[in-house]
């Protein structure tokens, strides 16, 4: 291989998938939407008589075979969208107490397979340049002030996105950083896959996940 990096890059060809315009090329089974009934033995009470609660689920597979994964990556809820961010959407990630896997899955949406930049989605290094804050992990005392200050530093309009079971409900580890009514977007998964994260972020800025709804916007993945 030549160390002329430009040529190296061109020779490799296009590696980016067309998701979310098309179905995911390599959707994981865990996590994905679960389908089933009855069951028990859930360590986080995500299996109830009323059914499966995606935000609590840590996808530990203890409910198998009563529940089975479907491969469906749309396990998120968008409560509010901001169409202002349709052309460019800048995200500030904040680790309030994560194990590292949500951090890595969030970074993965910028890998060539997903390439969030092509959709106008970017990561920023300071909340002052951010349109949305991505909160990952449970609440920890040491990060409370950093979270509050990051939120206050963001300009209006702004969105708050909870990424992963810990951030949404506390998961199996502890307590969520914020009350759930403060979240505009909740992304389930332990950790959520890059497909789920990309689809949720795209929907949050009013983007169309074409494979599902032909352009009307994926406001509710439920």
């Amino acid at each position, binding site marked *: *291989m*030549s*160390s002329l*990096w430009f040529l*190296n*890059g061109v020779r*490799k060809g296009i*590696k980016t998938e067309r998701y979310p315009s098309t179905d995911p090329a*390599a959707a*994981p*089974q*865990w996590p994905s939407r679960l389908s089933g009934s009855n069951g028990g033995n859930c*360590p986080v009470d995500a299996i109830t008589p009323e059914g499966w609660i995606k935000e609590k689920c*840590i*996808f*530990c*597979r*203890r409910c198998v075979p009563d529940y089975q994964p479907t491969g469906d990556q749309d396990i998120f809820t968008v409560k509010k969208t901001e169409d202002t961010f349709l052309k460019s959407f800048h995200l*500030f*990630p*904040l*680790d*309030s*107490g*994560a*194990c*590292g*896997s*949500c*951090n*890595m*899955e969030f*970074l*993965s949406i*910028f*890998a*060539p*397979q*997903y390439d969030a930049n092509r959709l106008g989605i970017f*990561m*920023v*290094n*300071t909340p002052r340049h951010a349109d949305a804050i991505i909160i990952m*992990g*449970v609440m*920890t*005392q*040491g*990060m409370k002030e*950093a*979270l509050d200050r*990051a939120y206050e530093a963001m300009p209006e309009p702004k969105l708050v996105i909870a990424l992963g079971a810990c951030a949404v409900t506390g*998961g*199996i*580890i*502890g307590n969520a950083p914020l009350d759930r009514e403060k979240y505009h977007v909740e992304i389930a998964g*332990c*950790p959520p*896959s*890059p497909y789920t994260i990309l689809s949720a972020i795209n929907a949050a800025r009013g983007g169309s996940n074409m494979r599902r709804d032909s352009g009307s916007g994926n406001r509710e993945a439920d």
Partner: protein
Amino acid sequence: MRYYRFGNPEGRFIGNTEKYAAYENVISEHRHEIGAESYQNLPGEFTFAYGPATGGLIESVAFDLHTPGELIKHVGVDPYVKTRPLKIRGLAPQDALLMVERINGFHAASNALAFEMAVEDALDIDVPDRVWYSRLIMLELERIRSNLEVVKRVCEPAGFGVPQNQISYLRENVARIISRLAGHRYFFSASSIGGCQISKSGIETMISSVKREFGEIFNALLESKIFLNRLQNNGNINEGDLLGPAARAAGRNVDARLEEMHMPYADLGFKPFIFDEPDAFGRFYVRSQEILASTDMISEALEHSGNSSATDTAGASGEGAARVESPQGDLFYYVRITDGRIEDIQMSSPSLLNIEAFRKSMAGNIFTDYHFNWESFGIWISELAVVIQ
């Protein structure tokens, strides 16, 4: 305990747990002193605070850089800003495992296996040979992904967008291999006390492809003098206690895989890659060589590997300890189990000594060296910032 005993400090220091100090084969009830160093700015110097929350860091960690402007005179690191309390004591081992996997999600296989091996040691559980091969594959796959991430992040501050993205592409491919093998991209719930569940269909071809593609990128990086210049003599450290790739880059023949009693590293002819450049370049070089070596080991181990279901630990009691070579270095677990419940659990992460090594190695460097050096250690804060309850 079959491999560890309580006693006076002896052999290589691995790290401190909440109560103990862990050495190669000994657990000491007296924690090893790691000197906390304070620094007073000299006239003309100031403290530059970096973190805990910034997009330039994967995890939350706070740095105080003492500097007159460009030269870094001293670094203070606070890895405990995001300390998580984990309620593990009182749980059955299989329930505790769900928590242990999430101590460091990126190194979940290492944490899970070290914990499982400590429980198996405590309860005299025999594990089939085929499962040891499967566990070796899990550990080496995790090492490949982790090392790819380190090499990628070392390319980032150099502005090497093409290799950075090409390695990022490979890292995602390895995540997909792991998902196919273990059913989960981070090995969560893939192994159990006494057992392991993997699916190896198609893995060998995919791993060969990773080896070939990374080998090409690695060779091209070695031809890039500008890139090498950013790494060489950056973050020199060859004093004190070093673990993992940082130790091997400094010429030390230390690796928990050499002392492994169960996983068949010796049968596969494993020899650690030792280098003599104790800087960011040496750490980059050792990690890259380990990626290539790990792909070979996985290819050989696949044909011998197999599955086994979990062992019931209800009502059992005992005390055990184990250590594995995580991608960052020695990772140690100790457990005491009474009537099938975890009465005590102690863990020592390689992050403790690696942060200390990074801190010492940074003095005398300049600001633009900082990211290369930090990333070259591959430190994970989540593993250190936990309080087990």
